[in-house]
């Protein structure tokens, strides 16, 4: 028998030896889908939040100073001792955000990212508790890329709500979402 004919017969054999599986087989497999497919690298439980805060000492310091400044503004720029605390606070923030210092800039950017992630995780938790089927990509993405999708969930009208890494929100169609996800995967594999 010639090779071409043999190959043709083998292809045909594939078509004729199609044995259907039992009807509820797919459902049986789906029942075994683990509740948590991939455990997130950094959890969203209290312990991890504390760890996250502990790691970002500078972000915590900045948050404290900003709070002090805001309270100062709220009290019309003065406190019981005088306005020295408010002024010092403003100066500290200015120094911390330090225009010229590259190291500071990097730290501020890092703190900003951590802050975004913290807010995003809180939002994710809230949505999950509300019963939304949210997909959170935070542990698998490059958060420096502001156009990357951080999380998504389906809306009642069939569209999807998408939150990007810079916390922008957008409502997109299923096709647009597929394009965004495909782009994410390609960026990651580059």
């Amino acid at each position, binding site marked *: 028998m010639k090779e071409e004919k043999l190959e043709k017969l083998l*292809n045909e054999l594939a078509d004729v030896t199609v044995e259907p599986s039992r009807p509820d087989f797919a459902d049986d497999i789906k029942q075994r889908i683990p509740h948590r497919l991939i455990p997130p690298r950094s959890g969203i439980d209290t312990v991890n939040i504390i760890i996250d805060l502990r790691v970002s000492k500078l972000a915590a310091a900045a948050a404290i100073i900003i709070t002090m400044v805001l309270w100062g503004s709220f009290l019309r720029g003065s406190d019981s001792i005088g306005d020295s605390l408010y002024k010092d606070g403003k100066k500290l923030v200015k120094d911390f955000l330090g225009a010229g210092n590259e190291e500071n800039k990097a730290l501020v950017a890092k703190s900003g990212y951590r802050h975004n992630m913290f807010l995003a995780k809180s939002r994710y938790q809230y949505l999950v508790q509300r019963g939304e089927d949210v997909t*959170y990509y935070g542990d698998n993405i490059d958060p420096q890329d502001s156009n990357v999708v951080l999380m998504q969930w389906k809306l009642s009208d069939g569209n999807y709500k998408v939150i990007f890494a810079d916390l922008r929100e957008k409502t997109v169609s299923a096709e647009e979402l597929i394009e965004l996800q495909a782009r994410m995967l390609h960026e990651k594999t580059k």
Partner: protein
Amino acid sequence: MNRYSQQRRDSLVARLKAGNRAAAAELVDIYYERIYLFMRRLGHSRQVSEDLTQESFFQAWQHIGRLRSGKALNSWLHQIAANASRLHWRRNKGRKAVSIDGMDVPDNGKAEFDKVGHLEQLEQLKNGVANLPMKLKETVVLHYMQHLTIAEAAEAIGVREGTFKSRLSRALRALRRQIAAEDR
């Protein structure tokens, strides 16, 4: 063949990597029949094929982080299934391969005589594939029956394309020999 476009598969992989359970269910819907048939074509019984198919999906969910892109999804899933199959044969040495029971040959307007002759040829070939050594059987099943490309099939069994091609031609030679011997 796979109806899912590249973009859709990429989207599926992105959601799987994010741990989306709906995506895991979608993966089952797309591939469970193919993986089950792959197991049956490798000579496992119905029950064992079901068990190994379930095991393959379970392994896929556990190691989804290793998947690179939607393009590799088909070969990656077949790789997991082939490993599950090999492990089963290793653990159950001496167990005989079982071939798929019936064949549903379309009429195609052929005369009864031709139809019977054609059916015999297919039956011979089916037995020939079933009698191949496992390594050769894998190559034939992956390429001709599961319709993976040479590159995909080679990746699925973890060999180079050259090695795969050489195994495939050995398998075809062996099949020709078997059929010729039966015809005598």
